[in-house]
Protein backbone atom coordinates (compact mmCIF):
# COMPACT_ATOMS: atom_id res chain seq x y z
CA UNK A 1 0.00 0.00 0.00
CA UNK A 2 1.22 3.40 -0.90
CA UNK A 3 0.94 4.67 2.66
CA UNK A 4 4.06 2.74 3.64
CA UNK A 5 7.59 3.80 2.70
CA UNK A 6 7.50 6.16 -0.25
CA UNK A 7 10.88 5.02 -1.55
CA UNK A 8 12.07 1.55 -2.38
CA UNK A 9 11.36 -1.09 0.23
CA UNK A 10 14.34 -1.51 2.49
CA UNK A 11 15.36 -4.84 3.89
CA UNK A 12 15.95 -3.76 7.46
CA UNK A 13 16.92 -5.88 10.45
CA UNK A 14 13.73 -4.67 12.15
CA UNK A 15 11.67 -6.33 9.40
CA UNK A 16 12.40 -9.68 11.04
CA UNK A 17 10.77 -8.52 14.28
CA UNK A 18 7.10 -9.01 15.10
CA UNK A 19 4.93 -5.93 14.56
CA UNK A 20 3.84 -6.07 18.21
CA UNK A 21 7.46 -5.95 19.35
CA UNK A 22 8.11 -2.95 17.13
CA UNK A 23 5.05 -1.09 18.38
CA UNK A 24 5.77 -1.68 22.05
CA UNK A 25 9.45 -0.85 21.52
CA UNK A 26 8.64 2.41 19.73
CA UNK A 27 6.15 3.44 22.40
CA UNK A 28 8.54 2.73 25.30
CA UNK A 29 11.39 4.45 23.49
CA UNK A 30 9.28 7.58 22.94
CA UNK A 31 7.97 7.50 26.52
CA UNK A 32 11.49 7.32 27.94
CA UNK A 33 12.64 10.04 25.53
CA UNK A 34 9.96 12.51 26.56
CA UNK A 35 10.55 11.79 30.25
CA UNK A 36 14.21 12.93 30.09
CA UNK A 37 14.77 15.94 32.32
CA UNK A 38 18.52 16.59 32.10
CA UNK A 39 20.41 17.84 29.07
CA UNK A 40 22.71 14.81 29.14
CA UNK A 41 19.67 12.51 29.21
CA UNK A 42 18.16 14.27 26.20
CA UNK A 43 21.42 14.14 24.25
CA UNK A 44 21.77 10.43 25.09
CA UNK A 45 18.18 9.80 23.92
CA UNK A 46 18.92 11.53 20.62
CA UNK A 47 22.09 9.44 20.19
CA UNK A 48 20.07 6.28 20.90
CA UNK A 49 17.51 7.39 18.29
CA UNK A 50 20.31 7.88 15.75
CA UNK A 51 21.57 4.35 16.52
CA UNK A 52 18.04 3.01 15.94
CA UNK A 53 17.89 4.91 12.66
CA UNK A 54 21.19 3.34 11.63
CA UNK A 55 19.85 -0.12 12.57
CA UNK A 56 16.63 0.47 10.66
CA UNK A 57 18.47 0.96 7.38
CA UNK A 58 16.63 4.20 6.59
CA UNK A 59 18.94 6.89 5.31
CA UNK A 60 19.20 10.30 6.94
CA UNK A 61 18.17 11.83 3.60
CA UNK A 62 14.89 9.90 3.66
CA UNK A 63 14.10 10.99 7.19
CA UNK A 64 15.28 14.57 6.96
CA UNK A 65 12.31 15.39 4.75
CA UNK A 66 10.01 14.15 7.51
CA UNK A 67 12.01 16.03 10.11
CA UNK A 68 11.71 19.26 8.14
CA UNK A 69 7.96 18.87 8.20
CA UNK A 70 8.01 18.56 11.98
CA UNK A 71 10.43 21.46 12.38
CA UNK A 72 8.29 23.59 10.11
CA UNK A 73 5.45 23.13 12.54
CA UNK A 74 7.48 23.86 15.65
CA UNK A 75 9.28 26.94 14.31
CA UNK A 76 6.72 29.32 15.78
CA UNK A 77 7.21 27.91 19.25
CA UNK A 78 11.00 27.76 18.95
CA UNK A 79 11.25 31.36 17.80
CA UNK A 80 8.86 32.59 20.46
CA UNK A 81 10.32 30.79 23.48
CA UNK A 82 13.66 32.64 23.71
CA UNK A 83 11.83 35.95 23.24
CA UNK A 84 9.04 35.38 25.74
CA UNK A 85 10.46 33.36 28.64
CA UNK A 86 11.69 35.81 31.32
CA UNK A 87 15.26 35.51 32.57
CA UNK A 88 18.75 36.95 32.20
CA UNK A 89 19.41 37.98 28.59
CA UNK A 90 21.83 35.93 26.57
CA UNK A 91 21.74 38.18 23.54
CA UNK A 92 19.82 41.32 22.83
CA UNK A 93 19.14 43.35 19.72
CA UNK A 94 16.95 46.43 19.85
CA UNK A 95 13.79 45.79 21.86
CA UNK A 96 14.23 42.01 21.61
CA UNK A 97 16.33 39.93 23.95
CA UNK A 98 16.85 36.21 24.02
CA UNK A 99 16.68 34.92 27.57
CA UNK A 100 18.89 32.10 28.80
CA UNK A 101 16.09 29.88 30.16
CA UNK A 102 14.12 30.44 26.96
CA UNK A 103 17.00 29.27 24.79
CA UNK A 104 17.60 26.29 27.10
CA UNK A 105 13.94 25.34 26.80
CA UNK A 106 14.03 25.60 23.01
CA UNK A 107 17.18 23.45 22.81
CA UNK A 108 15.64 20.79 25.03
CA UNK A 109 12.51 20.72 22.86
CA UNK A 110 14.56 20.39 19.67
CA UNK A 111 16.49 17.47 21.19
CA UNK A 112 13.53 15.48 22.48
CA UNK A 113 11.19 16.16 19.53
CA UNK A 114 13.83 14.95 17.08
CA UNK A 115 14.75 11.95 19.20
CA UNK A 116 11.08 10.92 19.39
CA UNK A 117 10.45 11.35 15.66
CA UNK A 118 13.60 9.42 14.71
CA UNK A 119 12.71 6.59 17.10
CA UNK A 120 9.16 6.34 15.74
CA UNK A 121 10.27 6.44 12.12
CA UNK A 122 13.08 3.94 12.50
CA UNK A 123 10.90 1.34 14.21
CA UNK A 124 7.57 1.88 12.45
CA UNK A 125 8.12 3.62 9.12
CA UNK A 126 8.46 0.42 7.09
CA UNK A 127 5.67 -1.44 8.90
CA UNK A 128 2.85 -2.28 6.48
CA UNK A 129 -0.51 -0.90 7.62
CA UNK A 130 -2.08 -4.37 7.52
CA UNK A 131 0.50 -5.74 9.93
CA UNK A 132 0.08 -2.65 12.08
CA UNK A 133 -3.68 -3.23 12.25
CA UNK A 134 -3.28 -6.86 13.20
CA UNK A 135 -0.71 -5.99 15.87
CA UNK A 136 -2.96 -3.28 17.33
CA UNK A 137 -5.88 -5.72 17.42
CA UNK A 138 -3.87 -8.30 19.32
CA UNK A 139 -2.62 -5.60 21.71
CA UNK A 140 -6.23 -4.95 22.69
CA UNK A 141 -7.46 -2.10 20.48
CA UNK A 142 -11.27 -2.44 19.99
CA UNK A 143 -12.11 -4.33 16.81
CA UNK A 144 -14.29 -1.52 15.43
CA UNK A 145 -11.38 0.88 15.71
CA UNK A 146 -9.15 -1.60 13.90
CA UNK A 147 -11.76 -2.06 11.15
CA UNK A 148 -11.98 1.69 10.79
CA UNK A 149 -8.22 1.89 10.43
CA UNK A 150 -8.04 -0.91 7.86
CA UNK A 151 -10.75 0.76 5.76
CA UNK A 152 -9.01 4.12 6.06
CA UNK A 153 -5.72 2.60 4.92
CA UNK A 154 -7.45 0.91 2.01
CA UNK A 155 -9.41 3.92 0.79
CA UNK A 156 -7.21 6.90 1.63
CA UNK A 157 -4.82 6.27 -1.27
CA UNK A 158 -7.78 5.70 -3.59
CA UNK A 159 -9.48 8.93 -2.56
CA UNK A 160 -6.22 10.83 -2.66
CA UNK A 161 -5.88 9.77 -6.31
CA UNK A 162 -9.45 10.87 -6.89
CA UNK A 163 -8.73 14.25 -5.29
CA UNK A 164 -5.58 14.61 -7.41
CA UNK A 165 -7.63 13.95 -10.56
CA UNK A 166 -10.15 16.61 -9.55
CA UNK A 167 -7.37 19.14 -8.89
CA UNK A 168 -5.74 18.34 -12.23
CA UNK A 169 -9.05 18.85 -13.98
CA UNK A 170 -9.36 22.22 -12.22
CA UNK A 171 -5.89 23.23 -13.43
CA UNK A 172 -6.67 22.03 -16.95
CA UNK A 173 -9.61 24.44 -16.96
CA UNK A 174 -7.28 27.26 -15.99
CA UNK A 175 -7.70 27.40 -12.20
CA UNK A 176 -4.87 29.47 -10.73
CA UNK A 177 -5.68 29.70 -7.02
CA UNK A 178 -5.45 33.46 -6.68
CA UNK A 179 -6.46 35.21 -3.49
CA UNK A 180 -10.15 35.80 -4.19
CA UNK A 181 -13.57 34.39 -3.47
CA UNK A 182 -13.58 32.23 -6.61
CA UNK A 183 -10.69 30.18 -5.16
CA UNK A 184 -12.54 29.35 -1.94
CA UNK A 185 -15.72 28.53 -3.83
CA UNK A 186 -13.75 26.17 -6.08
CA UNK A 187 -12.13 24.45 -3.11
CA UNK A 188 -15.49 24.16 -1.38
CA UNK A 189 -16.92 22.48 -4.47
CA UNK A 190 -13.85 20.23 -4.67
CA UNK A 191 -14.27 19.04 -1.08
CA UNK A 192 -18.02 18.64 -1.62
CA UNK A 193 -17.52 16.65 -4.82
CA UNK A 194 -15.03 14.37 -3.11
CA UNK A 195 -17.43 13.79 -0.21
CA UNK A 196 -20.33 13.02 -2.56
CA UNK A 197 -18.22 10.60 -4.57
CA UNK A 198 -16.87 8.90 -1.47
CA UNK A 199 -20.28 8.42 0.11
CA UNK A 200 -21.52 6.92 -3.16
CA UNK A 201 -18.51 4.64 -3.16
CA UNK A 202 -19.29 3.70 0.44
CA UNK A 203 -22.82 2.71 -0.60
CA UNK A 204 -21.43 0.40 -3.30
CA UNK A 205 -18.89 -1.10 -0.87
CA UNK A 206 -21.61 -1.61 1.72
CA UNK A 207 -23.85 -3.37 -0.80
CA UNK A 208 -21.01 -5.60 -1.95
CA UNK A 209 -20.22 -6.50 1.66
CA UNK A 210 -23.85 -7.35 2.43
CA UNK A 211 -23.95 -9.43 -0.74
CA UNK A 212 -21.15 -11.55 0.62
CA UNK A 213 -22.84 -11.91 4.00
CA UNK A 214 -20.65 -9.58 6.10
CA UNK A 215 -21.46 -10.24 9.74
CA UNK A 216 -19.37 -7.57 11.45
CA UNK A 217 -16.13 -9.52 11.59
CA UNK A 218 -13.17 -9.73 9.25
CA UNK A 219 -11.10 -12.87 9.18
CA UNK A 220 -7.59 -11.96 10.32
CA UNK A 221 -4.56 -14.12 10.08
CA UNK A 222 -3.47 -15.24 13.53
CA UNK A 223 -0.27 -13.74 14.88
CA UNK A 224 2.71 -16.02 14.80
CA UNK A 225 4.26 -16.47 18.26
CA UNK A 226 7.09 -14.14 19.27
CA UNK A 227 10.47 -15.46 18.21
CA UNK A 228 13.81 -15.54 19.97
CA UNK A 229 14.86 -12.44 18.04
CA UNK A 230 11.88 -10.52 19.49
CA UNK A 231 12.81 -11.42 23.05
CA UNK A 232 16.48 -10.65 22.48
CA UNK A 233 15.67 -7.25 21.00
CA UNK A 234 13.14 -6.51 23.74
CA UNK A 235 15.55 -7.35 26.55
CA UNK A 236 18.41 -5.38 24.98
CA UNK A 237 16.19 -2.33 24.51
CA UNK A 238 14.84 -2.60 28.07
CA UNK A 239 18.40 -2.65 29.43
CA UNK A 240 19.42 0.37 27.34
CA UNK A 241 16.31 2.30 28.37
CA UNK A 242 16.90 1.48 32.06
CA UNK A 243 20.46 2.77 31.70
CA UNK A 244 19.13 5.93 30.04
CA UNK A 245 16.68 6.58 32.86
CA UNK A 246 19.49 5.98 35.39
CA UNK A 247 21.77 8.43 33.59
CA UNK A 248 19.00 11.03 33.53
CA UNK A 249 18.15 10.73 37.22
CA UNK A 250 21.70 10.72 38.56
CA UNK A 251 23.41 13.22 36.30
Amino acid at each position, binding site marked *: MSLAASGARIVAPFEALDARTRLVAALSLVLVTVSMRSLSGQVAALLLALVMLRLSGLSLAQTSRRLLHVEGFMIALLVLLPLTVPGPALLSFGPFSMSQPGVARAVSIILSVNAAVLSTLSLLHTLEPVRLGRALASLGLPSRLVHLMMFLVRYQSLLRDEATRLVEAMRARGFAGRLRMHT*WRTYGNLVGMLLVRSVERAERVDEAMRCRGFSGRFPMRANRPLTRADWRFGCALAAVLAALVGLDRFS
Partner: protein
Amino acid sequence: MAHIPDGVLSGPVLVAGGVLAAGGIALALRRLDEEEIPRTAILSAAFFAVSLFAVPVGPSSVHLLLGGLMGLILGSAIFPAIFVALLLQSVMFGFGGLTSLGVNTFNIALPGALVGMLLAPAIARASASRAAVLAGIGSALAVAGTGTLVAVSLALSSNDYAASAKVMIATYLPLMCIEGLVAGFCVSFVKKVKPELLAPVPAGA
Protein backbone atom coordinates in the same frame (compact mmCIF):
# COMPACT_ATOMS: atom_id res chain seq x y z
CA MET B 1 -0.89 23.02 12.58
CA ALA B 2 -2.75 21.35 15.41
CA HIS B 3 -0.41 18.37 15.61
CA ILE B 4 1.68 18.72 18.74
CA PRO B 5 4.72 16.41 18.50
CA ASP B 6 6.18 14.18 21.21
CA GLY B 7 8.45 15.88 23.70
CA VAL B 8 6.64 19.19 24.07
CA LEU B 9 3.80 18.64 26.54
CA SER B 10 4.08 17.65 30.20
CA GLY B 11 3.12 14.25 31.57
CA PRO B 12 -0.14 15.25 33.30
CA VAL B 13 -1.39 17.02 30.14
CA LEU B 14 -0.56 13.97 28.01
CA VAL B 15 -2.39 11.65 30.42
CA ALA B 16 -5.42 13.94 30.69
CA GLY B 17 -5.61 14.24 26.89
CA GLY B 18 -5.32 10.48 26.54
CA VAL B 19 -8.12 9.83 29.03
CA LEU B 20 -10.45 12.42 27.47
CA ALA B 21 -9.82 11.14 23.94
CA ALA B 22 -10.33 7.52 25.04
CA GLY B 23 -13.64 8.52 26.63
CA GLY B 24 -14.80 10.24 23.44
CA ILE B 25 -13.73 7.29 21.29
CA ALA B 26 -15.44 4.76 23.58
CA LEU B 27 -18.72 6.73 23.58
CA ALA B 28 -18.63 7.15 19.80
CA LEU B 29 -17.79 3.49 19.13
CA ARG B 30 -20.71 2.36 21.27
CA ARG B 31 -23.05 4.44 19.11
CA LEU B 32 -21.42 3.37 15.86
CA ASP B 33 -23.08 0.39 14.21
CA GLU B 34 -20.87 -2.22 12.51
CA GLU B 35 -22.72 -1.45 9.30
CA GLU B 36 -21.87 2.24 9.45
CA ILE B 37 -18.14 1.49 9.54
CA PRO B 38 -17.58 1.49 5.75
CA ARG B 39 -19.40 4.83 5.36
CA THR B 40 -17.56 6.40 8.30
CA ALA B 41 -14.19 5.08 7.15
CA ILE B 42 -14.52 6.08 3.50
CA LEU B 43 -15.70 9.57 4.42
CA SER B 44 -12.80 9.84 6.89
CA ALA B 45 -10.48 8.79 4.08
CA ALA B 46 -11.89 11.63 1.95
CA PHE B 47 -11.30 14.15 4.75
CA PHE B 48 -7.82 12.72 5.28
CA ALA B 49 -7.04 13.07 1.57
CA VAL B 50 -8.26 16.69 1.50
CA SER B 51 -6.29 17.66 4.60
CA LEU B 52 -3.08 16.55 2.87
CA PHE B 53 -3.62 19.12 0.10
CA ALA B 54 -2.09 22.55 0.48
CA VAL B 55 -4.67 25.24 -0.26
CA PRO B 56 -2.99 28.34 -1.76
CA VAL B 57 -3.38 31.57 0.21
CA GLY B 58 -1.66 34.31 -1.73
CA PRO B 59 2.07 33.53 -1.66
CA SER B 60 1.68 30.95 1.13
CA SER B 61 -0.54 27.91 1.63
CA VAL B 62 -2.44 26.19 4.44
CA HIS B 63 -3.70 22.71 5.21
CA LEU B 64 -7.36 22.49 6.12
CA LEU B 65 -8.31 20.93 9.47
CA LEU B 66 -11.93 20.21 8.48
CA GLY B 67 -13.00 19.51 12.07
CA GLY B 68 -16.31 21.38 11.76
CA LEU B 69 -17.25 19.72 8.49
CA MET B 70 -16.36 16.29 9.86
CA GLY B 71 -18.48 16.91 12.94
CA LEU B 72 -21.43 17.88 10.75
CA ILE B 73 -21.19 14.79 8.55
CA LEU B 74 -19.78 12.13 10.89
CA GLY B 75 -21.28 13.24 14.22
CA SER B 76 -19.60 11.73 17.25
CA ALA B 77 -17.73 9.28 15.01
CA ILE B 78 -15.31 12.16 14.46
CA PHE B 79 -13.44 10.95 17.58
CA PRO B 80 -12.41 7.52 16.27
CA ALA B 81 -11.99 8.94 12.74
CA ILE B 82 -9.49 11.58 13.86
CA PHE B 83 -7.72 9.16 16.18
CA VAL B 84 -7.15 6.60 13.44
CA ALA B 85 -6.02 9.24 10.93
CA LEU B 86 -3.56 10.77 13.41
CA LEU B 87 -2.26 7.33 14.38
CA LEU B 88 -1.55 6.51 10.74
CA GLN B 89 0.05 9.91 10.19
CA SER B 90 2.41 9.55 13.12
CA VAL B 91 3.35 5.95 12.35
CA MET B 92 3.78 6.34 8.61
CA PHE B 93 5.03 9.91 8.31
CA GLY B 94 6.45 10.61 11.78
CA PHE B 95 4.10 13.59 11.79
CA GLY B 96 2.39 14.39 15.09
CA GLY B 97 3.35 12.11 17.94
CA LEU B 98 2.63 8.84 19.71
CA THR B 99 2.40 10.11 23.28
CA SER B 100 0.50 13.23 22.19
CA LEU B 101 -2.01 11.20 20.16
CA GLY B 102 -4.71 11.57 22.82
CA VAL B 103 -4.25 15.34 23.23
CA ASN B 104 -4.21 15.92 19.47
CA THR B 105 -7.30 13.76 18.91
CA PHE B 106 -9.20 15.59 21.63
CA ASN B 107 -8.11 19.06 20.44
CA ILE B 108 -9.38 18.48 16.90
CA ALA B 109 -12.36 16.19 17.55
CA LEU B 110 -14.11 17.95 20.45
CA PRO B 111 -14.81 21.29 18.72
CA GLY B 112 -15.91 19.41 15.59
CA ALA B 113 -18.20 17.11 17.55
CA LEU B 114 -19.76 20.09 19.37
CA VAL B 115 -20.36 21.95 16.10
CA GLY B 116 -21.95 18.82 14.66
CA MET B 117 -24.15 18.30 17.69
CA LEU B 118 -25.36 21.91 17.80
CA LEU B 119 -25.68 22.73 14.10
CA ALA B 120 -26.33 19.48 12.20
CA PRO B 121 -30.12 19.39 12.86
CA ALA B 122 -30.55 23.03 11.80
CA ILE B 123 -28.38 22.57 8.71
CA ALA B 124 -30.31 19.46 7.69
CA ARG B 125 -33.53 21.51 7.63
CA ALA B 126 -32.18 24.81 6.27
CA SER B 127 -32.04 26.00 2.67
CA ALA B 128 -28.73 25.72 0.78
CA SER B 129 -27.65 29.32 1.39
CA ARG B 130 -28.67 29.36 5.06
CA ALA B 131 -26.98 26.00 5.62
CA ALA B 132 -23.80 27.36 4.00
CA VAL B 133 -23.71 30.35 6.36
CA LEU B 134 -24.31 28.15 9.42
CA ALA B 135 -21.65 25.63 8.33
CA GLY B 136 -19.18 28.43 7.59
CA ILE B 137 -19.61 29.98 11.02
CA GLY B 138 -19.51 26.56 12.68
CA SER B 139 -16.32 25.56 10.89
CA ALA B 140 -14.57 28.83 11.74
CA LEU B 141 -15.57 28.34 15.38
CA ALA B 142 -14.28 24.75 15.31
CA VAL B 143 -10.88 26.02 14.11
CA ALA B 144 -10.91 28.65 16.85
CA GLY B 145 -11.79 25.93 19.38
CA THR B 146 -8.93 23.74 18.22
CA GLY B 147 -6.51 26.69 18.33
CA THR B 148 -7.63 27.52 21.85
CA LEU B 149 -7.29 23.91 23.00
CA VAL B 150 -3.77 23.69 21.50
CA ALA B 151 -2.82 26.90 23.32
CA VAL B 152 -4.37 25.62 26.56
CA SER B 153 -2.49 22.29 26.29
CA LEU B 154 0.75 24.23 25.86
CA ALA B 155 0.01 26.71 28.65
CA LEU B 156 -0.98 23.95 31.10
CA SER B 157 2.23 22.06 30.33
CA SER B 158 4.63 24.77 31.39
CA ASN B 159 4.59 28.43 32.35
CA ASP B 160 7.34 28.94 29.79
CA TYR B 161 4.82 28.28 27.01
CA ALA B 162 2.16 30.71 28.21
CA ALA B 163 3.34 33.76 26.25
CA SER B 164 4.11 31.74 23.09
CA ALA B 165 0.71 30.07 23.27
CA LYS B 166 -1.04 33.44 23.13
CA VAL B 167 0.87 34.43 20.02
CA MET B 168 0.17 31.04 18.43
CA ILE B 169 -3.58 31.56 18.75
CA ALA B 170 -3.25 34.54 16.40
CA THR B 171 -1.79 32.28 13.70
CA TYR B 172 -5.13 30.44 13.58
CA LEU B 173 -7.00 33.54 12.38
CA PRO B 174 -6.29 33.14 8.63
CA LEU B 175 -7.14 29.43 8.81
CA MET B 176 -10.41 30.28 10.55
CA CYS B 177 -11.50 32.53 7.69
CA ILE B 178 -10.42 30.17 4.92
CA GLU B 179 -11.90 27.11 6.52
CA GLY B 180 -15.16 28.92 7.18
CA LEU B 181 -15.40 29.92 3.51
CA VAL B 182 -14.42 26.51 2.09
CA ALA B 183 -16.79 24.67 4.46
CA GLY B 184 -19.61 27.08 3.63
CA PHE B 185 -19.24 26.61 -0.12
CA CYS B 186 -18.82 22.87 0.38
CA VAL B 187 -22.08 22.60 2.33
CA SER B 188 -23.93 24.70 -0.22
CA PHE B 189 -22.66 22.31 -2.95
CA VAL B 190 -23.58 19.18 -0.99
CA LYS B 191 -27.02 20.61 -0.17
CA LYS B 192 -27.74 20.92 -3.90
CA VAL B 193 -26.15 17.66 -5.05
CA LYS B 194 -26.71 15.15 -2.25
CA PRO B 195 -28.59 16.68 0.69
CA GLU B 196 -29.01 13.34 2.48
CA LEU B 197 -25.27 13.45 3.23
CA LEU B 198 -25.99 16.26 5.71
CA ALA B 199 -29.01 14.60 7.29
CA PRO B 200 -28.32 13.32 10.80
CA VAL B 201 -27.01 9.75 10.57
CA PRO B 202 -30.05 7.47 10.84
CA ALA B 203 -29.78 5.25 13.90
CA GLY B 204 -29.12 1.63 13.01
CA ALA B 205 -29.67 2.22 9.28
